[in-house]
């Protein structure tokens, strides 16, 4: 039969020589390889103490931004949810009451806003669709691994940007 490639090897069971039967040179060779790896650069890092450098356009965990006065920007218009190819986003809208102007930017706001991180494919289409510049995918945070499925459904408590209580600069 004609060979398809020249890469095939003929395997034959030969009688081993004395040095081969002693195994000692082979053990020394194997140890040499092991010791060589001690001095090589490590392929792993000590996550989460250390993190790898990510690209500038990395799309990580979502955040719901606040405006310059600390009011939530999201108006629950639903464009992120309709743009989402994985259908990971759900929300319910509510009407802003008198006296809540400092909390919500527009007269309508998201009462609940949930992103299912198990469904999310981090494509960033929600960010692109948002007309109010409210949702962004951060470049420095990831959705961490968890034990329970429920913990992957991120509500407003974990998505909304925390209020800046103290001046940092």
């Amino acid at each position, binding site marked *: 039969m004609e060979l398809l490639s020249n890469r095939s090897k003929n395997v034959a069971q030969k009688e081993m020589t004395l040095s081969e039967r002693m195994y000692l040179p082979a053990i020394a060779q194997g140890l040499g390889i092991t010791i060589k790896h001690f001095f090589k650069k490590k392929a792993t890092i000590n996550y989460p103490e250390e993190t790898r450098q990510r690209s500038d356009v990395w799309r990580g965990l979502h955040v719901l931004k606040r405006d310059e006065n600390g009011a939530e920007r999201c*108006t*629950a*218009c*639903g*464009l992120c*949810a*309709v743009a989402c190819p994985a*259908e990971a986003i759900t929300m*319910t*809208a*509510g*009407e802003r009451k008198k006296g809540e102007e400092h909390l919500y930017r*527009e*007269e*309508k706001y998201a009462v609940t806003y949930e992103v299912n991180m198990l469904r999310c494919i981090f494509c960033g289409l929600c960010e692109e669709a948002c*007309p*109010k510049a409210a949702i962004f995918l951060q470049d420095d945070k990831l959705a961490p691994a968890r034990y329970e499925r429920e913990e992957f459904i991120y509500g407003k408590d974990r998505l909304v940007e925390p209020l800046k209580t103290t001046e940092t600069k």
Partner: protein
Amino acid sequence: MAKITFDGIEVEVEDGTTILQAARKIGGDVVPPAMCFYTPLKGSGGKCRVCLVKVTQGSARDPRPMPKLVASCITPVQDGMVVENTTNEDVLNARKGIVEMLLINHPLDCPICDQAGECDLQNLSYEHGVSATRYEEPRRTFDKVDLGPYIQLHMTRCILCYRCVYTADQITDKRVHGVLGRGDAAEIGTYIENVIDNDFSGNVIDVCPVGALTDKTWRFKNRVWFTKPLNAHRDCPTCSGKVTLWSRGDQVLRVTARKDEYAEVEEFICNTCRFDKKEVSDWTIEGPRNIDRGSVISANHYELPVVNVPIVPNLPKSTVKKMPTE
């Protein structure tokens, strides 16, 4: 009968038909948009000017072109008339300008507005408008007004098409709302907070091409593209009872009249059907309502497009797609 040529397509219509209706007889992309004209309402039309067309030949007897662009919704056809709509550069430019005019005072609050997704002005500006505004002056603003317990008026969004006024005039017995003021100061008002309490007053919501008149029972409940439109009917003593239900899960979020492809209602419905019957058990459901594929309402709805119906037997009538006739 009069034979006219509309965008190079010949069509024969009854005498006295308007150019717009003749174009709608052809159907498809050549139909001029209309913001104020509404077939079921007598006397409507001629206000918004978005349906302007160029008449290049007045009639067979007098082939001179009409000197200016004419509003197709109120201009009757004449035998031998030649009309240009999408094929005429002037018409498209004029329409662009008119959209810009309509948007001068219209707020950019589509993310909040309940009409978004089924708004005529949104569609119109998407197709004919420019994405940027040249207007620098402050837009006119009004406080929102409650017209009775069910209807809310956002005067800031109104484009003064007068459709609701005609509806109140013709469908309901006594009109308690109209247009107050003139020109830039014109606004829809009820005389001294007079409540519209007629049985058919809810229809002003359906005829409104923008989000100026909205249903308070539907206010901020959900976005229209997350709801599922269903054709349904019930035995109603006051109206035909044929409606579209906008539901999510087992919940009926909103009830509207059935609208055709030009967003015109087929039959007006009463307030009991519209505002009080919000249970699935109140209705006999006929099947899903056919929504245009290009509409955002059909986004993420994965219904099987049934084109060749005879292959699949016993399908409800609502699944039959109207195919464009070649």
